[in-house]
């Protein structure tokens, strides 16, 4: 038994007796009221006997508290057989004197009531059983059987009152099971009248052809407790009840960034996702949500951390095969036990049960990253509010355990992409949107970050490519012609290149023209110079000739004078 002190400051301390049943101790804030009887009421097949027996088995194996099981309905051999399938070895526990099963057989037709009587025989049996193994826990399953066996209800009721009082004085923590009643009473015989400290009801309802077991703590004197209906699961390890782990939003936050598995996406987010954050990847069909999720899973495993991949659409082998074709080989990690792919059809059970299953797997596998691919398919199982409440609880639980969660979500064409049917956006820290960009008869993938709490992130749409080496994110074409992707981007880029080349050629041509022009001018200059030089030459010749003519004229004149014998001037 553990002591639970509440912070109200009252000196009274309520002893709690942990059940050891996963989740139930969270709802009841530590367990059942210690040393007092608790009533568990439920219809046939709701799991009353199982909860009661698990309470004893866990007590015997985990808390060193032996237990006595008084069976009014099932024989010991049947109980042993039934619980063997849940991994409880009752025979072994009995041999270790940690458990004692006493089958009380009562058949109305065999018993004649001949006057006043009491149930002292039952008390003696119970007392003897408790004392023989030093039991701290007792189960009476189902004491209401007495009502059908004994006719004198007056005596019976008085004796039951005495019994529960006696159990309290005996100091044992007891579970009394009762058939759920139809009218205003919780149990058919109104047992809640006697057991008033703690009442738990079990329910097994079918909604939309899916059966879900639920548990609710109707009352718990002197203790806070969850009042909702909590789904629970019966599997090979017993019962798991799913609680809301943190209503207070007080989980630790980490500033550590973890890589997304796509280098460019890391830079878009300024370093990766925050550890323990929740990420939503939404997009229409075939936009690469699973691929992105698988990349993230691979990056996780590469770091040597564990990743739980919950697939609601594809079988594990199919995911591995498909991812291998784009260069993401997940198989080695599956073999190393770092990656666990769990596939389940969304419709095999109700939402709550899915949640319990996930909860259980997360608790067992203890991953650092959980991928749910896709959450959309769960919507088919429940209503919007149910889905939202389930996701809230799932995300809460993951955050509380610092698990980074990545969800994929299929949006339907036509609807605004920013709207998710479940309205989960408020729960999501980082939201990446994958969208089709349809231009020129082509569908291309674009990726952008819609929101990312607490980190700088790129506002650009990137083009998202799947290559043989995994995901590649490249800048989409942004230019005067708008945002282009795919072939359109390639064409536009080619066009741009052509323009560039043309401009270059133009310049070359102009340069050549100028050169030619220069050469022509130079030629002209040369010609003019030549012309000038020719003129000069001509002139020089002319002056020479003139001088010679003058010389000749002088000579001639002198000759004439000589001939004429003219006086010499």
């Amino acid at each position: 038994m553990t002591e639970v002190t509440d912070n109200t400051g009252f000196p009274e301390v309520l002893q709690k007796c942990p059940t050891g049943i996963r989740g139930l101790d969270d709802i009841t804030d530590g367990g059942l009221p210690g040393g007092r009887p608790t009533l568990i009421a439920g219809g046939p097949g709701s799991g009353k006997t199982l909860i009661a027996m698990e309470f004893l088995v866990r007590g015997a194996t985990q808390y060193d508290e032996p237990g006595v099981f008084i069976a009014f309905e099932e024989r010991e051999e049947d109980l042993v057989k039934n619980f063997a399938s849940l991994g409880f070895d009752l025979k072994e526990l009995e041999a270790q004197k940690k458990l004692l099963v006493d089958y009380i057989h009562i058949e109305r037709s065999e018993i004649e009531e001949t006057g006043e009587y009491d149930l002292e025989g039952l008390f003696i049996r119970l007392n003897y059983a408790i004392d023989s193994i030093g039991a701290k826990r007792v189960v009476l399953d189902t004491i209401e059987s007495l009502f059908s066996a004994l006719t004198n209800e007056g005596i019976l009721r008085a004796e039951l009152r005495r019994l529960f009082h006696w159990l309290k004085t005996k100091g044992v923590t007891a579970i009394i099971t009762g058939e759920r009643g139809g009218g205003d009473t919780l149990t058919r015989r109104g047992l809640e009248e006697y057991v008033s400290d703690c009442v738990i009801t079990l329910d097994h309802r079918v909604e939309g052809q899916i059966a879900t077991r639920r548990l609710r703590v109707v009352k718990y004197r002197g203790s806070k407790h969850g009042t909702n209906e909590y789904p629970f699961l019966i599997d090979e390890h017993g019962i798991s009840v799913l609680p809301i782990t943190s209503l207070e939003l007080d989980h630790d936050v980490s500033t550590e960034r973890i890589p997304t598995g796509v280098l460019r996406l890391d830079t878009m987010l300024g370093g990766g996702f925050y550890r323990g954050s929740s990420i939503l990847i939404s997009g229409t069909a075939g936009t690469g949500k699973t691929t992105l999720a698988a990349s993230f899973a691979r990056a996780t495993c590469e770091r040597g951390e564990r990743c739980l991949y919950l697939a609601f659409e594809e079988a594990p082998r199919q995911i591995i095969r498909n991812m291998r074709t784009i260069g993401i080989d997940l198989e080695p990690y599956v073999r190393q036990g770092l990656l666990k792919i769990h596939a389940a059809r969304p419709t095999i059970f109700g939402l709550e049960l899915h949640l319990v299953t996930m909860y259980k797997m997360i608790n067992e596998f203890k991953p650092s990253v959980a991928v749910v691919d896709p959450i959309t398919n769960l919507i088919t199982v429940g209503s919007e509010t149910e889905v939202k409440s389930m996701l809230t609880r799932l995300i809460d639980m993951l955050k509380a355990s610092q698990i980074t969660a990545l969800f994929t979500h299929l949006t339907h064409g036509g609807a605004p992409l920013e709207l998710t049917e479940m309205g989960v956006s408020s729960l999501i820290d980082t939201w990446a949107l994958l969208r089709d960009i349809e231009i020129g008869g082509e569908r291309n993938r674009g990726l952008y970050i819609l929101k990312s709490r607490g980190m700088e992130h790129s506002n650009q749409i990137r083009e998202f490519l799947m290559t043989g080496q995994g995901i590649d994110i490249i800048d989409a074409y942004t230019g005067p012609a708008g945002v282009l992707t795919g072939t359109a981007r390639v064409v536009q880029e080619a066009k741009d290149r052509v323009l560039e080349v043309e401009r270059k050629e133009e310049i070359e041509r102009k340069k050549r023209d100028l050169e030619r022009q220069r050469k022509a001018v130079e030629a002209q200059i040369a010609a003019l110079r030549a012309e000038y030089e020719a003129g000069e030459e001509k002139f020089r010749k002319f002056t020479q000739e003139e001088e010679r003519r003058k010389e000749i004229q002088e000579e001639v004149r002198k000759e004439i004078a000589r001939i004429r014998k003219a006086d010499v001037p």
Partner: protein
Amino acid sequence: MNNIKEPQQESEIQETEPEVWELRLYIAGQTARSDAALANLKRICEEHLAGKYRIEVIDLLKNPQIARDHQILATPTVIRKLPEPLKKTIGDLSQTERVLVGLDLRPLKKE
């Protein structure tokens, strides 16, 4: 269920081969009720089975294990161990008619 034929057969057996009735009275300590039960049982036996009955009183407080072994729940309980089949009544045996039915003691004299 137990129709008239069976007791007749038994009474025939009784007549031809008188046997000892073995009755066990289970009580939880010496209480007024257990005393009353024993007194009532003795009275009825004397009346119907004079000389051919044996009463064993078992106090469960002294032998608690027996409560489990013999499937005793209410006290006082009377079990007719012999002749077979086993018969069981609970209560202080104050309602004689019911005791006769419960232990299958036909009130032969009155018939």
